């Protein structure tokens, strides 16, 4: 009990003093997950739009696959990326295993299906409503895609935030491909796991609090985006 009380006091101290190690870890977490979501968005949104708009045989299979991949277990993604990047793997010569780059790749793969599947759904629904009007304007597929992406912007941002929430809170993938190396690849989740097992509860709790705060902030942002969208009838 005494230990726990001490730990709480220490946690508080770490947070208030903006401990340098703590900041470094939080910073890397945000950077890795942020970059992963950016990449997933740049690929996933157009991919989702393409699947929403194009009509080709086997399209339904891609839709099912994307939806199924939304629930990919992070450890499995970590393992797959590990196999790709390990010395014997096809991308082994790049030498990026156990670097933040590897972590970004793993998280981008984890988030991509979420972004692509949600984008596909949103844009396909909107296409039903817009298609005739856009065709009357003489728009081709390219114009339609960009119009639909812009008009779905609030829903798409929500999808990106959902992806970020999943990435930043995930341990399995980053620990496998990052290796949890001090000052190099330590992010919030992996550090919490490690420090807890070492008995350094204060540090783990401080990070836990920061993580919960970030996830809450992301949800608040989603909520306020929805609110803005509804208020201007853009939802």
């Amino acid at each position, binding site marked *: 009990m005494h230990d726990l009380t001490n730990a709480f006091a220490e946690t508080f101290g770490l947070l208030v003093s903006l401990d340098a190690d703590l900041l470094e870890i939080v910073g890397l977490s945000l950077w890795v997950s942020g970059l992963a979501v950016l990449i997933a968005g740049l690929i996933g949104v157009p991919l989702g739009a393409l699947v929403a708009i194009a009509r080709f045989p086997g399209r339904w299979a891609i839709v099912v696959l994307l939806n199924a991949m939304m629930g990919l277990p992070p450890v499995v993604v970590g393992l797959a990326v590990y196999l790709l990047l390990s010395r014997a793997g096809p991308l082994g010569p790049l030498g990026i295993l156990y670097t933040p780059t590897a972590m970004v790749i793993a998280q981008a793969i984890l988030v991509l299906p979420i972004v692509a599947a949600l984008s596909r759904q949103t844009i396909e629904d909107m296409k039903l409503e817009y298609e005739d009007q856009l*065709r009357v304007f*003489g728009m081709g597929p390219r114009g339609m895609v960009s119009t639909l992406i812009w008009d779905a912007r609030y829903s798409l941002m929500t999808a990106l935030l959902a992806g970020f929430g999943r990435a930043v809170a995930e341990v399995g993938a980053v620990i496998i491909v990052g290796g949890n190396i001090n000052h190099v690849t330590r992010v919030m989740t992996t550090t919490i796991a490690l420090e807890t097992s070492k008995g350094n509860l204060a540090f783990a709790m401080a990070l836990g609090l920061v993580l919960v705060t970030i996830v809450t902030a992301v949800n608040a942002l989603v909520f306020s985006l929805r609110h803005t969208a509804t208020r201007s009838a853009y939802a």
Partner: protein
Amino acid sequence: MLDRGNTSVAGRPIADLAFEEARPEVRPVVGQNIRIARDGRLLLDVDELVVSGSGMTVLMGPNGAGKSLLLRCLANLVAPDSGTITWGGCQPDRARAARLGFVFQRPVLLRRSARANIRHALRAAGVSRGEAAERADQALAAARLSHLSRMPARRLSGGEQQRLALARAMALRPECLFLDEPTVNLDPASVAAIEATIIAAGRSGTKVLFVTHDSAQARRIATDILFMHDGQILERGEAARFFDAPGTAAARAFLAGDLVGEPGPEHRVRTA
């Protein structure tokens, strides 16, 4: 104007000539042997329809007659089961599409401001950024919507949305304008304003195809009439003649305000 084979092109406003000359013509819009059947019911059965020249053709007919479907077919939005649609003598193509304006029975407004709705349509039609902005403002002013130009389009009232959809279609300076019941939700002043706008467009060289159930309105604006019933064009011709002496029982009943042809279970009427 809608007689078979008539392909005359009326004079257009001088200011627009240079702009329009560079583009392929969408007129005449011609449908031939158009048939659409669904669930064993013939929804559309039109041997020939030529939409050409200028002026105001009013398309009348009871609910479910196939008016909206015919318009969507001519605009190349619905492929008929059989028959052909041509625009300016050619297969419909994207280059001509923007020359055919269409305001749907339920207007589709983009999730943008009123002004951005018009600007985007103009940009899609290849109008330069600066000119699009200018023309969007002119169109809003003409529709008396300037004070709402920054409003999210979908927050506008139903009537304002209809006026915006029409302003957007007009801003593209179409050769042909299909209007599917564009005044149903409007107050009398807006109806009058829109009728005036459309009549002016018809006089200055645009061909307007206007769907309405309101025979008083049709009398006010029509130069000629198409009367549809059960997927077929039963009557076509000059407005005055149609109203004085409708040639079919269905048209007489329609004008008298009766139910046209008791809808049996196999053709329940429904709004598109």
